[in-house]
């Protein structure tokens, strides 16, 4: 039996004992996960530094802060999320219990990505644990230091059988995908997303796919261009552009192009100093393969800011490109690197057309003072999310669903959405064996009279809310008239 098969089997056996059912045990594991993230801060930061040259502050800001927030939210809200959810009834089920019962799915597979190795692996895990599942965690082998730390340290905090960490490359992942899971949660590229879904098809396993795409960023003439460029610069060059929701490219009117370039140039200097290469808070490209890939994308465009690089360090400077069109090399794939192309369009109509000619992205950014324009972009485009006048921060609002559409993915998570995504919402109708007389109208032999009654009772929807309000009103009128009669004569 392979290592992967063993891990899945153990997780399933452990799940079947029922130990994840009680909310206390889930909260216990979540508290342990929180302890892991806080106690092992240094180990995590060191690993990320080795993988992505991210500073300790950067790691806390962009990796663990989010995970801590999600865990605390889940612990606080779990009782509410896991409680049976009552639904409206029909006239005939008035005396019955009708509710939706959130239940665990079973054994979930979480495949993490390398760009935020902790955030995108542990945040889905929070949802999985909260929903009462077992989870096999497969961190990306590309961020090898983080994967190693996860494999060594996580089992010291979480139940080893319920939440095994299984490391490995492509063959190991393929072996994992041959096993049967009750849900697969994958973060990564669209290309591999298709393979995951195909593998899941064999066992009729539902999937959540958090993929990517080219997230456009439209800057309207009518906006605070200085502030816009600050926010865009920040959003773009965090993690060296290796963020699924990074603004991939900018669309703006030719008349503001130079201003945009200048502002971004100034911001880069302000944030990352004159020499980002030596600056602690500027990262590196994950590996040589991606370094080469990103460098090749510059071909055919003009570098106006940055452009310098150092292969030995996988360093690429924060770079802005111009003379870019829809056909340029840099527009052929998701950049996932610190290159910001600026494409000129004459107004929002052309911008919307440009965006709609391409696959639906994970997010669309629009910067404008004009609310009507923003509303137009919302109404005439489709994307996982839409954020106006800033970048990235929608990720931090746990009450917003985080996910894609079309090529950028399916399903969503964060906060309660993570819990719901990894639960089975079981419909429950609890009836008694009484009131058999009422049921008899649906039994054969069928007569026209019975049919008439059945049509009225069985399927008519009663707006109970309205009924209640009317009864209350009638009561109020009754009481009011009584009071008037009795006391106000």
């Amino acid at each position, binding site marked *: 039996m392979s290592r992967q098969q063993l891990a899945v089997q153990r997780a399933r056996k452990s799940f079947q004992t029922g130990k994840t*059912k009680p909310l206390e045990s889930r909260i216990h594991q979540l508290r342990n996960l929180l302890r892991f993230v806080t106690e092992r801060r240094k180990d995590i930061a060191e690993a990320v530094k080795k993988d992505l040259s991210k500073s300790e502050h950067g790691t806390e*800001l962009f990796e663990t*802060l989010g995970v801590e927030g999600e865990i605390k939210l889940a612990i606080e809200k779990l009782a509410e999320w896991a409680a049976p959810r009552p*639904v*409206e009834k029909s006239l005939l*089920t008035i005396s019955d219990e*009708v509710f*939706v*019962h959130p*239940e665990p799915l*079973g054994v979930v597979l979480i495949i993490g990505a390398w760009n935020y190795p902790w955030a995108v692996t542990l945040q889905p895990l929070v949802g999985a644990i909260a929903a009462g599942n077992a989870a096999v965690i497969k961190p990306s082998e590309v961020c090898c230091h983080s994967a190693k730390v996860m494999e060594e340290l996580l089992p010291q905090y979480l139940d080893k059988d319920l939440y095994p960490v299984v490391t490995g490359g492509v063959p190991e992942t393929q072996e994992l995908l041959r096993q049967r899971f009750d849900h697969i949660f994958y973060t990564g590229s*669209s290309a591999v997303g*298709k393979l995951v879904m*195909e593998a*899941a*098809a*064999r066992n*009729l396993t*539902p999937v959540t796919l958090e*993929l990517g795409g080219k997230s456009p960023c439209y800057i309207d003439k009518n906006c605070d261009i200085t502030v816009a460029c*600050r926010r865009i610069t*920040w959003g773009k060059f965090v993690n060296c552009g290796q963020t699924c929701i990074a603004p991939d490219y900018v669309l703006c009117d030719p008349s503001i192009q130079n201003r945009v370039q200048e502002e971004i140039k100034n911001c880069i200097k302000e*944030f990352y100093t004159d020499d980002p290469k030596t600056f602690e*808070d500027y990262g590196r490209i994950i590996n040589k393969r991606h370094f080469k890939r990103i460098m090749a994308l510059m071909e055919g465009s003009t570098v106006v800011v940055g452009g310098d690089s150092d292969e030995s360090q996988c360093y690429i400077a924060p770079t802005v490109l111009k003379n870019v069109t829809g056909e340029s090399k840099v527009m052929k794939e998701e950049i996932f690197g610190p290159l910001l192309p600026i494409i000129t369009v004459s107004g929002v109509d052309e911008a919307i057309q440009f965006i*709609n000619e391409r696959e639906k992205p994970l997010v669309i950014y629009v910067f404008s003072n004009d*609310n009507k324009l923003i509303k137009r972009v*919302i*109404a005439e485009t489709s994307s*996982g*999310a*839409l*954020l*106006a*006048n*800033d970048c990235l*921060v*929608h990720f931090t*609002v*746990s009450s*917003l669903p985080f996910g894609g*559409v*079309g*090529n950028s*993915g399916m399903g969503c998570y964060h906060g309660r959405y993570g819990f719901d995504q990894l639960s*089975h919402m*079981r*419909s*429950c*109708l609890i009836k008694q*064996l*009484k009131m*058999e007389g009422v049921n008899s109208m649906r039994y*054969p*032999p*069928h007569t026209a009279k019975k*049919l008439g009654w059945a*049509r009225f009772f*069985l*399927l008519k*929807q009663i707006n109970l809310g309205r009924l209640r309000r009317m009864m209350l009103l009638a009561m109020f009128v009754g009481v009011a008239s009584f009071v008037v009669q009795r006391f106000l004569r």
Partner: protein
Amino acid sequence: MESQSQVLEGLRTAFESGVTIPEKFRRTQLTNLMSMIKDNEEQIVNALHKDLTKPKFEAILSEVDIVMNELHYALSNLTSWMQPEYVSKNLATKLDDCFVRREPLGVVLIIGPWNYPMQLLILPMIGAIAAGNCVVIKPSEVSAATDNLITELMPKYLSKDCYAVVRGGPKETQALLKNRFDHIFYTGSQAVARVVLQAAAVHLTPVTLELGGKCPCLIYGRVNATAAAHRLVWAKFFNAGQSCVAPDYVLCSKATRDALVPALRQVLEDFYGSDIQKSPDMSRIVTAKHWTRLMGLLNRTKGKVVVGGEHDEKDRYIAPTVVVDVAEDDALMEEEIFGPILPILTIESLEESIKLTKRKEKPLAFYVFSDESSVVKKVLENSSSGGFCSNDGIVHMALPGLPFGGVGNSGFGHYHGHWGFEAFSHRRAVMLRGWALEKLNALRYPPYSDEKLSWLRWTTSPKSCSIM
């Protein structure tokens, strides 16, 4: 005659024009769909009788009224379903607009089965239309009369630009699946579901699968055998057992079985008379192939037939049949029966019965009959299934407030009522920030520092807004 790809291209162009987006358009189409059903109730009932010998009563209840009900429900609630949903924020985003918008997916495909050919095709379609999509429906060719009727009626009532019927058998369906859709909704068997999922994976198309399974019916504890028999017979033999949520098999103790069997026999006579084949209220098996499959199961069973067993190949008739002394490895326990044969397995303890159901795939529905609420609770908490109903059968799926769908081998995703609207929508997170508070934003810009970080922790925690 337009080719499949021409039809789909037309629908995509229509969708991209934005015509399905306004609420008024969706209301008009749903109202027209209502007229289609109302105006043609008699033809619908006749077509269903032709396909399945479905009694008028069953046709009205389970194919006409349930659809009309869903339409009323959608029309009453459409406005509120389409509203943006505002969500709670943290301090850093207090001044921003954060909401979730329900948006149509695009062009969706709905593949229907033959057992409830109207309901299981039109009910999902209602959700798809309400959500603002263009829709391709593929009725089952097995229920041919209904297929013909839907193909004839749909273009007369619904916008021909936005909704299309595509017909054919497995070959045409496979060709259809090669195209790119924005959602595929499939009701049917596990085998075909795998094919659908694999085709969907090529385009990263999300899918809803409404499949089946062997729905167990546990009868334990103190039980009113007569009442239970009424409901069990009704649920089991409705549509001659050809329902994805029919109770497939019964588990009970010997004593319960001995009380149940005579009750079942009596109820069957009360419902259908002494010569059931002559009763107008009993359906037939849909095709000769399925009739042969069911007779095969009956011939191979090692159990004892105690009620029914009569059959007539020409009429595709199988009498409501009860088989006792059925073991776990019996032929009747191999696959979903989907017919009027009810095996009863004798298992003394409730715990053992629960264990047996755990050895099988998760079904679409799980039933328990008992006057003891502790028994009901125990079964609910120690089982997993799409839906759960105590002391009755099937009726839980008629409540639009409840999500109707499976888990595990019985499928994923769900619909009915609001859930149908959600199934065919994309929940888009929208955040509209202002320009102010840039100083607050400065906390997140490099160079990073401990001080900045601790301020940020506070402003982005969900608790911080409770102070305001």
